[in-house]
Structure formats: structure tokens, C-alpha cells
């Protein structure tokens, strides 16, 4: 088990470095091909060269490789002509970035001169809450619906689950988000807010069109449910198929024949084995939920990581994009590792050496 974990952790290194290089190259290409984002900050007002230059240097866009189209910014010509390993080259922008991030924990600053680490620290609690709500919602409701449908295949309930999940899967999340915001948050919420007997926590907290600082948890429930909705449908379908398959398995028949109670047969023998693919899906889904958060957070005005990435990408803030996405990659890698370890807990046949 220990050796397996160490091997997996070592595999993280090339994955993270590879992602970082891709991110670095893509954001550098964006600057090389679409111009210095610092110039865009001034808009129609042409800045004095002194001002533009001082700000470009300060914000870390001053490296000359950023004006050479296609340059991966890996090496630069050493100032004194004596570079690395006897050449005239020395490590360039990419290695500066790696060094800053891994040795000095310095992720750089955004265009407004705020530290990326501060930005992330501000944003992460909101995204975490949102993800927890989404995952709980999709796991609890999804598995429950899947189990009910799976046990009574062909029943009315089964068809209802099948039809409603197809419906949810076929609606893109940005459509679902806007529709929920307009009809649940604004229209239905306004009706509730007009009634005196509805407590404020519900009318102004839960049924609100977006995140509210006054209701830091309640106002995230609906955005979280929207974020979890698409995966909920997949979870329900996966559970349903898995249960249907396992219910006919030999060991379930044996358990029944032994005279175990129905509760124990379903709850322990069937369910636990049926959950393996579902857990895999939920683990991988943390990554997908992060991607979904980019959309949901923008629609529901949640000041989290997703919204941060969206707006940083729009304004070409490469340090923020590289920093935050690297962190997200780590989150996804760790989540996947945990899921793999969880298999062993669920299925005694799986051993890691």
C-alpha cells in the first residue's frame, strides 16, 4: 500500500510539470499573438512609454521572449554571455516560474497587483462549499434514485428516473443555470419574498438569484444543486445499471438463500459492490465539477475559483491562469488517488502492492 502511494505520488511530478509547461506555453502564445495585456488595461487612453514599461515590468510581462511569436520562453541569452553548461543560454521564463512557484511559493501577481495566493485564498472557501454541496447532492439523491429504480426495474419509478435523467443530461449547464436563476431565484423567489410567513432564510437566503454575503451557505445551495445536477443524472443511471446487474449475481442469490434479511442483502451485499463504479465516477467528477464551477460561479456570482479563472483568462492574466490551474491539477490528481485507495475499502479483493 505504502509503496503504491509513493509510486503514484512520483507519477504526479511529470504530470504536473507537463501541465504547467502546456499552460505556460499556451498563455505565452496568447500574449505573443494577441499583444501585451497591460496595454489593453489603458484602453483608448495611450499611456506614456515610461508608464507602460514600468507597469509591464512590475506585472511580469517584460520578458522579451513574450514578443517573439512561437517562442516557448524556455531559455534566454544570459546577460553576461556565460550561461548554463558552457552555452550562452540560461534558464528562461518557464524555469523562473517553476522556481518561484515551487521554491519560493510565489505564484506572481495579477494585473491589479494582487498576489495570486491571496486571490486563491479568498476564492477557495466558496468553491469548496459549492463542491461539497454539489457532491453531497449528487451522491445522496443520485444513489437513492438509482437504487430505487434499479430494484424495481420497469416500474413507474424506474421510468421516471430514466426520463428525468435523460432530460437533465441533455440540458447544457449554462442553460440550466440561467433558467434556474431566472425562474427559481428571481420569479419564484419574488413570490416567496412577498409572503410574510416564509422565513427570510428560505425566501432571501436559499431562493436567491446568486451568492449573497449575508447568507454565505444558504445562498450556495441552489448553485450547488445546479452544479451537481448533470452528474446526478449520470450517478443515478450508473447506480441503476450496477444494481440491476448485481441483484442477479450469484452471491446475492446465496445471501438470500442463507435467509439473510432483505435489508442486509440489499444494503450490504448488493449496494456495496454496486457502488464501485459510482465511486470512481464521483472521484473523477470532482475534476468535472471544478470545470462546471467555472460556468455556475459566473452565472450565480459566486466569488470562487471558477469565476477567478474565467475572468483571468479573459483579461490574459497568465500568472493567475498558470497558478490556479496548477493547483486544480493537484486537486484532481489527489482526488483520483483517494478514489483508487477507496476501492480497497469497498472491495476486499482489491489489494495494492
Amino acid at each position, binding site marked *: 500500500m505504502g509503496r503504491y502511494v509513493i509510486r503514484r505520488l512520483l507519477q504526479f511530478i511529470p504530470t504536473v510539470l507537463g501541465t504547467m509547461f502546456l499552460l505556460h506555453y499556451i498563455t505565452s502564445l496568447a500574449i505573443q499573438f494577441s499583444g*501585451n495585456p497591460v496595454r*489593453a488595461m489603458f484602453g483608448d487612453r495611450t499611456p*506614456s512609454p515610461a*508608464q507602460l514599461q514600468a507597469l509591464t515590468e512590475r506585472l511580469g510581462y517584460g520578458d522579451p521572449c513574450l514578443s517573439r511569436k512561437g517562442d516557448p520562453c524556455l531559455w534566454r541569452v544570459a546577460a553576461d554571455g556565460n550561461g548554463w553548461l558552457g552555452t550562452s543560454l540560461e534558464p528562461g521564463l518557464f524555469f523562473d516560474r517553476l522556481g518561484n512557484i515551487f521554491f519560493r511559493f510565489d505564484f506572481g501577481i495579477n494585473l491589479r497587483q494582487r498576489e495570486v495566493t491571496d486571490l486563491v485564498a479568498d476564492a477557495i472557501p466558496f468553491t469548496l462549499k459549492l463542491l461539497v454541496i454539489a457532491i453531497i447532492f449528487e451522491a445522496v439523491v443520485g444513489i437513492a434514485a438509482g437504487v430505487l429504480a434499479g430494484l424495481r426495474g420497469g416500474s413507474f419509478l424506474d421510468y421516471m428516473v430514466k426520463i428525468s435523467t435523460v432530460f437533465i443530461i441533455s440540458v447544457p449547464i449554462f442553460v440550466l443555470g440561467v433558467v434556474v436563476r431566472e425562474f427559481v*431565484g428571481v420569479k419564484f423567489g419574488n413570490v416567496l419574498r412577498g409572503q410574510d410567513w416564509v422565513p*427570510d432564510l428560505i425566501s432571501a437566503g436559499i431562493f436567491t438569484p446568486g451568492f449573497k454575503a449575508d447568507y454565505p451557505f444558504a445562498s450556495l445551495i441552489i448553485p450547488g444543486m445546479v452544479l451537481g445536477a448533470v452528474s446526478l443524472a449520470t450517478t443515478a443511471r450508473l447506480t441503476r445499471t450496477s444494481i440491476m446487474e448485481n441483484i442477479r449475481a450469484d452471491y446475492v442469490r446465496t445471501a438470500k438463500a442463507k435467509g439473510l434479511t432483505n435489508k442486509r442483502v440489499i444494503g450490504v451485499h448488493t449496494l456495496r459492490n454496486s457502488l464501485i463504479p459510482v465511486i470512481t465516477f464521483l472521484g473523477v467528477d470532482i475534476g468535472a465539477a471544478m470545470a462546471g464551477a467555472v460556468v455556475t460561479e459566473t452565472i450565480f456570482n459566486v*466569488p470562487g475559483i471558477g469565476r477567478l479563472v474565467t475572468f483571468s483568462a479573459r483579461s490574459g492574466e497568465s500568472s493567475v491562469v498558470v497558478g490556479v490551474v496548477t493547483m486544480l491539477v493537484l486537486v484532481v490528481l489527489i482526488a483520483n488517488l483517494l478514489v483508487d485507495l477507496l476501492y480497497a475499502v469497498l472491495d476486499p479483493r482489491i489489494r495494492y502492492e
Partner: protein
Amino acid sequence: MRGKFLKVAVAATATAMLATACGGSSDNDNDDAGSTGGTLRVYNAEPAFLTPSGGDDEPSLYVIRSLFRGLVKYNAQTSAVEMDLAESVESDDQKLWTIKIKSGYTFDNGEPVNADAFIRSWNFAAYSPNTQNNGYFMKRIAGIKDVQSTDPDGDGPQKAPEPKAKELSGLKKVDDLTFTVELEAPFSGFPTTIGYPGFFPMAEACIADIAACNEKPIGNGPYKMDGSWQHNVAINVVRSDTWKGEPGKPDRIEYKIFADVDAGYAAFQAGELDVMYTVPPARYKEAKATYGDRMYEQPGDSFTYVGMPLYQDNFKDKRIRQALSLSIDRQSIIDAVFDGRFTPATGFVAPTFEGARTDVCKYCTKDVEKAKQLLAEAGGWPAGEKLVLWANAGAGHEGWLQAVGDQIKDALGIDYELKVNLQFAEYLETADQKKFTGGFRLGWGPDYPFMETFLYPLYGTGSGSNNSTYSNPAFDAAMKEGDSADSIQAAIPSYQKAEDLIGEDLPVIPMWFNKVGAIYSENVDQFVWNAVSDADYAATSLK
């Protein structure tokens, strides 16, 4: 195994319930504050900076204007300059200005607002290593070149050298409440410029730790910070007891921060906001129908034009530019593409400005016959060449630019081609390097309420934002005459003379000025919009 699994599930549920309970209990405390009626909740985007020297974007300015006050303010209706913290702003030659400050004003931390407070703030903004956005506005003060420096070889990565001086030589303290400002050249509009937040004072403690001051600014205005800036969430300000001037009307202003204007509009519909200073373009018609008299509409001052690259041979003859302008029906484009959200431009100065006239441009209403005639006189458009129209990508300019192209094609038979693939940064660099091959879309917003701001920066010889490279000695002379006129009013005729020259030469084809559309809720008793500084929250009263 079963036990473990269930325990985890139970623990997770319990945590979730606990978290919900926590959220619930803290919510109730906040509700009472909301119902007192003294809290104005306003829409805002995330500001860039909250210090006067740094903030130059709309969301920053809205917050800075409640926390800080400057030497002068603007009349809400007429946009005329009125004294605020200044006792007087005077000059004999429009070059050396003497500013006297009223006594008794202090910052929130007790520091006095005196001559030093202003000199300190302006010097800080101007010094280029401080990289303050509003350093731009100090450009007229004598000694500006010595406090800014450029990298000698211009290609990095080594740092630009230290500027020659740390302070502007044009700023001199006379006594505690008096200082003089020497400009590089006479400028009669100087008093109008110093109402811009870039010229507001800053406390010594603020400059000593600018990062902390940006999170919790030390202001000198009618409101002070309540807590720190909650990034991307909210900024709350409350009435300041150190403010000696006319108090603000609401007890408290809550700036709710939205990243997306549509999310803000949904919050407004749900009754969570009292004022939105802007309306999402796609919802404009709907908002007007829904909120009716609670929608405030007024001509704005942001100018959109199609610039003419005078450095290209095809555009050198002014009759060609006139013909192009004459073939565009601006109102029809505004109605078709923008739901009537703009006012067609017939001049080069925003209609809200003192001295603006409506008939400066004689070539700004559609007249196909005249256009054809002018084009023929100029020798026609080179056969086989397309008229290229440029705009930056992803900002929704394609639609109207295509309409412009179609109208020109219909009127003059000139085929056109859109070039709308450059991102804003690269587009602006193309403008700076004068590489446009045809008409280019750009805009302009005024820096201060004085006609000059719409003229010299765009059309003055060698001026920073003169992207068409227009150069006309007569225009420059008329501008100079206005700059050294005895007063703001006396300067207007000279500037109008300069504007007439532009109206004839058309270095840019004026398109339209925006319309301001703000909405406010039923809680608002009186909504005040300042012609210069936009929504005035301190003057807006609640029911």
C-alpha cells in the same frame, strides 16, 4: 467495514447540518440592518484599486468618490465646477495656479487635509516606479518628465533607471493651506481637472503602507470603510464622523460586487439591490418596460468613432472621408443593432458638455447624392480595392461595423472587408504603431468636464491618442488659444473654432454618444445622477 462506511456517512451528514445551522444563525443578525432603511445597496463590479492614485476604472471611482473628496466638485445638472475642499483655485496666466484649502478637514485617522496631503498624493501618483494608474493625469504639471523614466534600450529585462527626481518640480507649498501648481503650458481648464479622483488627497499613513491602504482606505470624505474590502464580494462604507462638509444621505452604502452584469440584474430583479448604474445591453428594452419611471436615462459622454488612417494614401483626401461619413445613417444602425441605446453624433464633444453644439459635423447625416458627388470630385475610390474596416475581436463590434460597411457599399459602391480578428491588446498596439489599413473603431471617454478633453488628445499634432495622425496647425493654434484663455467660459469659443476645423476635415467619422441607463428600486426616494461623476450615492435618498 460496514461500520466504518456508515460512520463516515453519518459524520459527513452531521457536518453538513452543522454548517447549515451556522449559516442560518448568523443570517438573522444581518436582517435587522437591512430593514432600517438607511442602507443603500448598490451594484458594483470588482474595483481595481481603492486609492485615489490607483483607481481609474468606473467601479473603483464609485467607491473612491464616497470615501474621498477633492478640491472641487461638479454641479449635478450643469456639470459646472464648484469649490469643495478648496477655498479658491486661481491663476493670472493659466500656468501658475494658486490653490487655497478650507481649514478643518481631516482624514479618518485624524491627519489634517492640508497642502501636503495634496502634494504628497500627486507626487506619489506621478512617480513612475510607483506604477499608479492615475500618474497619467499628472501629465500637465511641470517636472513630469523628470519623475518618469524608461528603460534605455527599451527591451527589458533590466529595470528602467531611477527617474531623475522624486517629486514634481511644479508643486510648491506656500503655507499649511496654500500651494501652487505650475503647469508645463497654460491650461484654462485646470480647475475642471482636479475634481477627478486622481487628484484627491492621500494621508501620510496611507502612502507609508499603500497595500494596506488599498484594502482599507483612509479617506477624507463623507463615508469611511466598515471593515476591509471583501474582494469580489462587497465593500461596505458608513457615515464618517470626521467629515465636516455636507453629510451623505444614506447611513450606509453597501457596494455588492458582481463579476457579471446579468447576475447583477437578476439580483436587482430579486430586490437585493437599490441602484444599478448600468443595465445589461440585452435587457435594456425589458428594463425600460418593467421599471418605467424608475429607469433613469440621459445622454452620456462616451464617444464612438471610426478613425481614418490619414497615413494611408486612400484616406488623405478629406472629400473621401466626407463621402464615407455622408453615406452612413447612424440612427438606423442604432435602432437596428442597439435598441436605440445611443445618440447619433453630430459633433465631436459630448452633448452634456458646456460648449457642445449639435451641428458641428456637416457630413454626419445621410446624403447619398452629396456623398457621390464628393467622391467623384476626389477622383473616386481606387478601382478593385476594398475598404477595410477594423475593430477589436470579441467585443460585439462586428454587427454595427458590418451595417456601416453595407451602407457605404449601397451608397458609393465601394466593396468592404471587415477585419475583426485582433484581440484588444494587439488592436491597440496596431493603433499605437499606426498600422491600420482602413477605418478603425475606437472610443473615447472624457477625463474631466471640459471641451478640451474631447479635442486635443484625439486630434492635436503628436498627441497620445491621435490615432489618425491628424495634424493641422490651425487646429493646434485654436486649441492653444483656448488653453490660455482667461476662464473656462472664455475658452469655449476658441475650442469651438477648433471643433469646426475637425468637422470639416473629419480625421475621424463620428458615430454616436452613449446613453446612460440606470435603474433604481422602490426603496429609493430620490435618485441623483451627476452629469460628470455619474450616480451620486451620497446624495441619493431612501424612503
